[in-house]
């Protein structure tokens, strides 16, 4: 299980990486933690003759929280997201979700940038980033542009990122409200059968803010706009929650696979969304 051969590059700057990427075009790919890419390379499902390791670029590392704004470098690992005490304090949602990704070995090397750029609907971070309404910074030969996580995913493995662009960082505002990431999986370390990220704020018993996104329930993450619109401004009782859950399940579009048939996945989706909403409300 060894992939076909490639030339290995390890630039120490974003500009260096971009110039190799531009020089080799389609034949080149960046590698972050490699824990999504190496498996597909081993299966020879992809043909890469130039591999550009982003691991030597210090500009891509680190977490900063300033003026209510969080910025995370693409090469920050899932392990670092879990152990960063500032992040755990200001955005506990990230830690809660990261702990449900893969296993310890994978989390030491898997990065947030690789997880969101990959475009695999089974990845947890894209849905999480849609919940947080995060923005992705993409750097290419023509400069920097910002794309919202909610606009980034087009279909499985198709994203708004151009081939010669690198996803350099992710930013979002500190949420300051109730939160939950609920995930149903077959075993620890597995991708989601269904997962949901929820943020909610309450003004007495009225919902003043909400955000809900789903993981692995369609060929992209699903931001549940209808459910959100039906919660915000309403009195939140069991009926309102039921309605929101209904809209989320309606918005999902799972396919049958080894994790189960469509009916089962929608059923599980309903349960985890309800749990996530209830947990988030309890934490306001």
């Amino acid at each position, binding site marked *: *299980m*060894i*992939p*076909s*051969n*490639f*030339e*290995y590059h*390890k630039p120490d700057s974003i500009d260096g990486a971009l110039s190799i990427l531009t020089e080799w075009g389609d034949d080149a790919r960046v*590698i972050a933690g*490699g*824990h999504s890419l*190496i*498996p597909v390379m*081993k299966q020879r499902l992809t043909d890469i003759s130039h*591999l550009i*390791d982003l*691991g030597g670029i210090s500009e891509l590392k680190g977490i900063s929280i300033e003026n209510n704004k969080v910025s995370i470098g693409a090469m920050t690992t899932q*392990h670092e997201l879990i152990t960063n005490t500032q992040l755990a304090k200001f955005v506990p949602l990230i830690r809660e979700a990261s702990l449900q990704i*893969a*296993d*310890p*070995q*994978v989390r*030491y*090397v898997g990065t947030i940038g690789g997880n969101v750029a990959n475009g695999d609907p089974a990845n947890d971070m894209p849905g999480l980033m849609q919940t947080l309404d995060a923005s992705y910074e993409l750097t290419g030969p023509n400069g920097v542009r910002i794309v919202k996580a909610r606009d980034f995913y087009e279909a499985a493995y198709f994203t708004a990122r151009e081939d010669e662009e690198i996803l350099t960082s992710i930013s979002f505002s500190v949420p300051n409200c109730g939160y939950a990431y609920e995930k149903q999986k077959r075993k*620890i*370390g597995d991708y989601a059968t269904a997962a949901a990220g929820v943020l909610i704020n309450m003004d007495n018993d009225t919902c003043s803010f909400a955000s809900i996104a789903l993981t692995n329930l369609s060929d992209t993450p699903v931001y549940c706009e209808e459910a959100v619109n039906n919660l915000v401004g309403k009195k939140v009782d069991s009926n309102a929650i039921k309605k929101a859950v209904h809209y989320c399940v309606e918005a999902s579009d799972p396919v049958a696979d080894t994790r189960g048939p469509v009916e089962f996945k929608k059923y599980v989706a309903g349960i985890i969304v309800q749990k996530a909403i209830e947990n988030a409300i309890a934490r306001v």
Partner: protein
Amino acid sequence: MEKIRLNMTVNGKDVEVLTEPRQLLAHVLREELNLTGTHIGCETSHCGACTVDMNDMSVKSCSVFAAQAQGANITTIEGLGTPDGLHLLQEMFKEHHGLQCGYCTPGMITRAYRFLQENGSPTEEDVRFGMSGNLCRCTGYQNIVKAILATAEKMNEMKESA
């Protein structure tokens, strides 16, 4: 495709290997350096049998390219203990029957080593969660968990009496 000179520190010794960038670290360790204690179970990053310590992290060496290990500091099971001088974890695995066929054991022990560096007084739940990247087909895990908890306890006793 050109070979690369791969320089690493493995079990405290500097080594140089001529290899292809695509070669997997597990194969470099086993076939070039003859360190066959690192096992390959699934070769698809699921079972953890190939776990080694790399730059203070537990990694699955079947899912790291040789090129990515350039300059790395690596500890394999051979670096933790010897047949005459077992590591405390190895002693405890022996005492608590933490292994049957032994195939998963090098991965279990290298992972447990790093886990205990990060959490010296774990609960049973901490151990199960921290070891969740390692599969065992024989023991049912119970005795592996016991062995790791016993190691932590002994480590703490030794610290106290020191």
